[in-house]
């Protein structure tokens, strides 16, 4: 006869929601924010929402990379696109353009998610980043991100990054950071999407 001790859940409790908060990290002058657990086959899609990430100095680039070894190395090969819409508080510039200097073609470096973030007290960047089926060992791993922020030249910039991690190894960690700077404040939350 079954006893109570054999009653178990085989999935994380989620209240039936399709979007489950897995981890939330609040920055406090951190050089990096990394998610090194919880990225596995439990979910087919992972969503990261970043809110008011503030660099400690002006004109810093917000970056990400992924890892196939649990966060020991963030150096997975990627091919990406990068474009953005820009509008200055003074009315110019006003444009949308593709940025060849900010995309990657089979490179292993960190990908630019937002360039030139302002560090005024009221400036920051916000956005979302989707990573699809990271544990798959058949397909490459697609991702896309949308960032919105205040540029150090007092521009509103809406930045779009799309791409894939060109590996059939499972991706199991991700890292976010500002180039050569700390993340003073802000939060990044990781969600699993059922």
């Amino acid at each position, binding site marked *: 006869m079954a006893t109570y001790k054999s*009653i178990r859940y085989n999935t994380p409790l989620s209240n039936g929601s399709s979007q489950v*908060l897995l981890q939330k990290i609040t920055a406090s002058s951190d050089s990096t924010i990394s998610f090194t657990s919880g990225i596995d086959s439990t979910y087919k899609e992972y969503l990261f929402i970043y809110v*008011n990430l503030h660099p400690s100095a002006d004109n810093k680039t917000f970056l990400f990379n992924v890892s196939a070894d649990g966060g020991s190395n963030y150096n997975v090969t990627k091919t990406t696109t990068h474009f953005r819409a820009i509008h200055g508080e003074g009315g110019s510039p006003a444009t*949308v353009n593709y940025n060849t200097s900010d995309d990657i073609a089979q490179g292993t470096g960190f990908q630019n998610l937002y360039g030139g973030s302002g560090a005024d007290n009221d*400036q920051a960047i916000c956005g979302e980043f989707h990573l699809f089926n990271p544990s798959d060992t058949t397909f490459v791993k697609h991702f896309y991100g949308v960032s919105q922020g205040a540029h150090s030249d007092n521009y509103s910039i809406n930045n779009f990054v799309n791409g894939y991690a060109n590996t059939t190894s499972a991706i199991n960690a991700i890292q976010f950071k500002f180039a050569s700077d700390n993340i003073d404040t802000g939060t990044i939350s990781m969600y699993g999407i059922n």
Partner: protein
Amino acid sequence: MATYSSIAHNFTPPSATTSAQIGAGAMTLIKTVTASDSSDISFVHGTSDVVFDNTYKTYLFKFINLHLSSDTYLSLTGRDGGSDFDATKTSTYFRVEHKEDDSSTALTYKTNLDVAQATGETKLSGNTSDADDNAYSGELYVFNPSSTTFIKHYFGKINVISGADALEAGYFAGYFNHTAALDGIKINVGTGNIASGTIKMYGIA
């Protein structure tokens, strides 16, 4: 005999640094508004069960088949503490288009749809058709509206059919350029009304 204390989970809960809501459903429906020849639709904290404060860091609005009564546009305004929807904004707008007859396509920045430090409306679309089968659908994210430190960022996208029988997919983004809390937003139309459709407001933990 087994006791309740022996009931176990066979997984390790994910780690967390701050949130008490780890593992819980993260997206909460706050309010659904159904338009009925409405001149505008507003969401103001503390009004009609709307929560728009520090309860959530991110708010998501879904536009579902907003049908306008005339050939006009949708726009966005915000409230920075007073009763007027006159918060200062700087925004971007670009659009991809494709005509139904395949005669043209475009990817264009729209200088007539952005604003620079304006207190009036910022458009979410150009003028479109009020044809019976035409309506707006899309989404709008607003980040940390209650912050009194940072300006308030938002972005979104919206699909509609233009008067020239073209799909128009508009991508808008920007910031409410004030450090006072943003406690309300309003979706407006250029002329006429929002004849029908739904806007759903969610909080994301």
